[in-house]
């Protein structure tokens, strides 16, 4: 699966399926199971239909038919959130693990 066509063309894997969505949505938009299912089903079908090594199948789904501005801004300056300070990240990590550990103990 890929949303970065130029990187995948360079890597040249045996089989690939491309969907032109912003990074982080290679198998669809959040809480849209039907769209996600279509994309993943198309990918499974590609296992059977791709017969030539290095083929990239391009899927027809469009992120927003009325607005293609995401293509101008995706992965440009200011796109990535700032990395949290280590102390904040460690605190969040400890809380997450403690939450699940206590759930395991129940």
């Amino acid at each position: 699966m890929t949303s970065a066509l130029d990187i995948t063309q360079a890597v040249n894997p045996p089989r690939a399926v491309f969907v032109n969505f912003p990074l982080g949505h290679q198998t669809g938009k959040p809480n849209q199971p039907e769209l996600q299912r279509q994309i993943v089903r198309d990918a499974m079908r590609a296992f059977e239909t791709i017969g030539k090594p290095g083929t990239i199948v391009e899927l027809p789904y469009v992120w927003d038919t009325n607005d293609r501005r995401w293509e101008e801004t995706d992965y440009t300056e200011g796109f990535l959130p700032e990395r949290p300070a280590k102390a904040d990240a460690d605190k969040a990590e400890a809380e997450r693990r403690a939450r699940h550990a206590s759930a395991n103990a129940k």
Partner: protein
Amino acid sequence: MPVAYIPRTRELYKAYTPYRWVENRDTPPWTPLTKPIAQCKVALMSSGGILYRDQPRFHREDASYRLIPKDATQADLDVWHFGYRTDDAKLDHNCVFPLARMRELEAEGVIGELSDPAYSFMGGIYSSRTVRDELAPRIADELKRVHVDAFYLVPA
């Protein structure tokens, strides 16, 4: 128009030495599918930094991976990654780790079987050599052990 991510990355990190992207010009290795996908055991892996319950998070240049039980639900999963906007994946892991969708395709008979567990790593690894020589062989060993027919890799 597909976004040209290689020049975008070069621009975003222009203060640093230009990244040398992996370029494979030879014909890729080819393993033909020997039976219909409806009869295949398929394994799922995401590079989106997915974590199950209290599994430890990933670190910089981390070549480790996590095993995610195939029955994991949204409440079991979290995301740790610095190289993409993770908000939507945190809201619904199926954006980059379509585990629930793969379970449905298994139930519908579109695939023969979803291999258990699924796999996750954090794809923001600078060194392609680390991925090629450390991470990839370990994953390949895992997949050989469970005898999968097809491997579905979803990046983030």
